[in-house]
Structure formats: C-alpha cells, structure tokens
C-alpha cells in the first residue's frame, strides 16, 4: 500500500472537490474541505519522511513507464514544497470559517470551498508532477480557480483585479506552453527527467535558449518577480482575506519551485556558459524587487496592500538566493521559501482577523488594535519580527544562510544590499507596531473583542511555528541542503 503514497496528496483534493460540490449545505462543505486538506497534509508528512529515509519516490500513473506515461518523481525538493503547500492549505481552511461567513454571500459559500479545494489540488499537482505538460494542465486548474476566488472580493475592483490577473496569468501559461513545445520539438519527450538527460546532449541550440527564455518569463509572471508583478498587489488587496492568505503563502512558492525545477533539473544551466549571465540577471531583478517592494510597502496607506508589496520584496530575496548560483545560495532560497510561507501565513491571517473585527485594513482604522485584539496583534508582531529577521526567529535563519551564501562568494555589495533590505522591512513593520499600540483618539475604554477561537488558534500556532523554526531549524535547513545538493550535486564536488 505504501507505494500509492506519492499520488495520494494530489488525489485527495482532486476527488474531494467534485464530491464537495455535491454537498448542498455550506457548513458541511467547510467540514468536508478541512477533512480533505488535513488528510492530504498527513499524506504529505508520511511522504516527506519516506523520501527523507529512502530517497526519490517514483510512481508511474496508469501503469505506463516514464517517457510514455506520466510519472511522479518525488525528491526532497518536491516533498518540501508539498509539505509547505498542504500544511498551510489545511491550516487556512481550518481557520477560514468566520471570515468566509462574513465576506462571502450565503449562496456561494459551498462553491467557494470547492474552488479552494481545486486550487489546492492544482498547486499540489504542480509541485508533485514529473511531466512538463501535466504541470501546464495543473497550472491552469490552480489559475482558473484563483481567478474565481479573487473575483469574489467585497468591492467591485476585485473584478478588475481578477480580469487583469486572468490576462497576465494566461499569457504566462501560454509562454510556458510555447517553451514546452520547443522542448518537445528538440527532444521528443515530455517527462522532465527524460528532458534533463536529453537536453544537454542537444548542445547550445538557439531553440533551447528560446524555450528557456519563454519558460522563465512565463514562470516569472506567475511568480510576480519584479517587472512582471503588476497583477499581484491588486489581486491580493481586492481578494477576500482568506483567499489572500492562501495565495500569499502558497502560489508564489509553487512558481519558485517550477523555476528551480526547470533551471536546474531540466536545463542543467549550472554547466552552460550562460550560467554567469543568468545569475547576474536573477540577482539584479531580485535586488530591484526587494527595494521596490519594501519602499512602496513603507508608504502604503492600506496594510493589506503593504503586505502584498512586502511579498514582492520577499520573492526578491528568494530569487537573489537562486542568483548566487551555488549550493548554499539555493539552500538559502529554499529555506526562505519554507519560512516565508509561515511568516506570510501568520501575517495575512492575523490581518484577516483584524478585517473581520474592524472592517477595513487601512492604518487609520487599525489604531489601537493592540488593545482590542491583543493576542492576534501579538502574533502579527511576532511574525513581523520574523519577517525582519531578528535572531531567534525563522526569518533570521533564512537571512543568515543568505548572508553566508553571499559571503562565501565574496559578493560584499550583495551582502550589504540584503541587510539594507531587511532594514527597510523593519521600517514598515515598526510603522504597524506604532499604530497598533498607539493611543486611539476619543473613546478611551475599548472592549476586548478578540478574533474567533478557531482563527485565533491557527494564528497563534503559525506565529509559534515561526519561533520554533527559529531555534530548532533542522527540518528546513537539512531538507533544503539535501535538495540543493541533489540539484547542483555535480557542482559541489
């Protein structure tokens, strides 16, 4: 029975979504969605431990061997991303009840959870699959459900944000399809492992270069890397708050996974002489993303939009790690992927609790939130500290490994830029702390009106996880190290 493990995490939400559509009552749909998400999380945990002990798990779907049929090849990188996405997905679905009941109309709650399960299935499908075209199909599933989820936002601008996201997302997906088409034309196969073997033998053909360029542009559109991030602030701000939490913590991580998988497993770019030019491009874009995102976040009147721009900045940090091009750089990027999901999950979920009670997310209405919702604000501040990277929190670990990787390559300017980026993050987190604990004008007595219990538990859990992985960071560090080693193995000799 154990051999069925690699497909279960994707299969559960895949079959769960249509089953959830059959349940007519919204509360039943919510319970069913949480059950499916938790089961999928448990499967990923056991899959993670098996991959950790026994190495790569392969699973031929339909019983046909790899280049002819579709195959799942779960290695440490897949297992890490699957763990993050299903963990955050389960946590958010559990905490979503109150916020969804407030923001989504009565008739649409059942289908809302169906769309959430479909998005979860799509993201897990992308993270697990070993076939290039199958990745495109699951990318479409997650994107289509995300467009619908974003369009359900409270005010009318959500529709325009969803429309822009649809146009940009479809152009990105079609670019990826063009890239896969060129790859198929050169090698005749679609399985990524097979592509990895046959592509270097092709030598430096310009079609392979064009294929890589298209795939990188398509994935960076999904990743919202700096020049292609225009859809992200609108989509994250206008979407219902629970959808923003889910997107911020998972969809950009999966896009980063796809970028890493294509760069190192399929194109093996670490060997080609293009690697040097590519690394400088990634570092440059990453640094610009960090500074542009943080600067805009500082002057943003709306906290939700500020956190969206901070996501753009944090993605910049991950891409810097990728740009350094060594095993340590890739490890730092993967650690930040893991920690960023926890940080942004806690931050946006706490923000969802604020919006639930206060009704809006701009700074003026959040004055004195520290007294009204002490626990939720404390969790927000803790996650904020982790975002800055104060020692003792998970954020520090990822910044530390990033600095180490930059130092190992003697890139002192980059090291300085990374530290400056963290300082900028500190500015906008401190701006929130100031307003949260500042004296609200007028009514002095404020009745405590804490977030609902279900939501509060998950917020505090995510914040404490930030702390836990600050001290006992074996899990992210060693997994990321193993994954980076496997990907760039040859280089480290």
């Amino acid at each position: 029975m154990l051999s069925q493990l690699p497909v279960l995490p994707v299969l559960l939400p895949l079959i769960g979504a249509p089953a959830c559509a059959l349940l007519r009552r919204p509360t039943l749909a919510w319970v069913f969605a949480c059950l499916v998400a938790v089961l999928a999380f448990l499967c990923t945990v056991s899959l993670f431990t098996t991959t950790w002990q026994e190495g790569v798990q392969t699973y031929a779907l339909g019983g046909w061997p790899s280049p002819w049929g579709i195959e799942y090849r779960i290695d440490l990188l897949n297992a890490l991303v699957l763990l993050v996405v299903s963990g955050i997905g389960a946590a958010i679905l559990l905490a979503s009840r109150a916020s969804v009941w407030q923001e989504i109309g009565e008739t649409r709650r059942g289908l809302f959870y169906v769309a959430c399960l479909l998005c979860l299935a799509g993201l897990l499908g992308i993270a697990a699959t070993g076939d290039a075209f199958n990745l495109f199909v699951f990318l479409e599933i997650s994107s289509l459900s995300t467009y619908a989820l974003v369009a359900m936002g409270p005010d009318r601008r959500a529709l325009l944000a969803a429309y822009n996201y649809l146009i940009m997302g479809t152009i990105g997906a079609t670019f990826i399809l063009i890239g896969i088409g060129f790859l198929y034309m050169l090698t005749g196969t679609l399985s990524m492992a097979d592509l990895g073997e046959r592509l270097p033998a092709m030598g430096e053909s310009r079609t392979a270069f064009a294929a890589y360029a298209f795939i990188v542009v398509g994935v960076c559109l999904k990743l919202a890397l700096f020049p292609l991030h225009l859809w992200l602030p609108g989509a994250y701000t206008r979407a219902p708050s629970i959808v923003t939490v889910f997107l911020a913590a998972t969809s950009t991580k999966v896009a980063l996974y796809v970028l890493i998988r294509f760069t190192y497993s399929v194109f093996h770019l670490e060997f080609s002489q293009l690697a040097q030019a590519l690394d400088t491009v990634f570092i440059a874009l990453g640094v610009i993303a960090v500074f542009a995102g943080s600067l805009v976040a500082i002057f943003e009147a709306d906290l939700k939009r500020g956190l969206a721009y901070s996501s753009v900045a944090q993605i910049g940090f991950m891409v810097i790690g990728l740009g350094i091009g060594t095993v340590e750089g890739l490890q730092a990027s993967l650690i930040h992927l893991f920690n960023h999901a926890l940080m942004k999950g806690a931050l946006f979920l706490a923000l969802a609790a604020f919006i639930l009670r206060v009704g809006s997310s701009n700074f003026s209405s959040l004055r004195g939130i520290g007294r009204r919702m002490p626990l939720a604000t404390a969790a927000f501040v803790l996650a904020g500290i982790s975002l800055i990277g104060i020692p003792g929190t998970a954020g520090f670990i990822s910044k530390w490994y990033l600095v180490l990787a930059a130092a190992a390559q003697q890139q002192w300017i980059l090291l300085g830029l990374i530290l400056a980026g963290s300082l900028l993050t500190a500015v906008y987190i401190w701006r929130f702390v100031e307003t949260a604990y500042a004296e609200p004008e007028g009514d002095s007595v404020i009745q405590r009106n804490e977030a609902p219990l279900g939501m509060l538990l998950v917020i505090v859990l995510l914040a404490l996880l930030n702390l836990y992985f600050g001290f006992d960071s074996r899990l992210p560090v060693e997994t990321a190290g193993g994954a980076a080693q496997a990907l760039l193995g040859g280089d480290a000799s």
Partner: protein
Amino acid sequence: MDVFSYFNYWVVVVLMMLGFFIVIARGNLVKKLIGLNIFQTSVFILYISIGNVSGGAAPILEEGVALYSNPLPHVLILTAIVVGIATTAVGLALVVRIHAAYDSVEESEILAQDEPC
C-alpha cells in the same frame, strides 16, 4: 520544397504576435479575450506542425498504411483547446460582471472611474 519547410513556423510567429498585440494594445475587454484566443490558437498550430509527417496519414491504425503523423501533439492540443475555451468562458463572465459594476468595458473608462474613489 525546403523553401516552405519553415512556412508553418513563420505563420505561427506572425499569428502569435498579432494575438499578443491585440491583447496589449486594445482597451476593450472583449477584444482582449479575442486576442488571447488568437494567441493560444497559434500555439496549437505550432504543436500540430511539430507532429506532422509529410505524407503521413491520420493516426488511426489501418492495415496497409505504414507512415502516420505523430499522435502525441494531437492529444496535447485537445487538452489545450479545452483550456482555451475554459479561460475564455471565465474571462467573459468577468466582463459581464465588470459591465454590471462599471457600466463600461473600456479599460480607460473603468480606470477613470476608479481613480477618484
């Protein structure tokens, strides 16, 4: 013969650029979706031209026929066509709701309505 051997791919490039141009340059939301449709159809033509074997019959097994076209791109494009129609349907649903909310489908007018509030 080889003069036309790349003709298919040149047409794919031209169609892709025309579709891409419509999506970016035109302000009307429905026209953007039509441009997106052309952009995706040109990718279908690219895939089918990859799989075509000159003189090869349709991939339906019959006795006496040896040379077939490659069936794999056909399977991929069947999926891609349905993805295209799914995206167009969701896009059009959004356009209908945007029209209900903003009473216009021109991007310039919609953005103008958003600025003041």
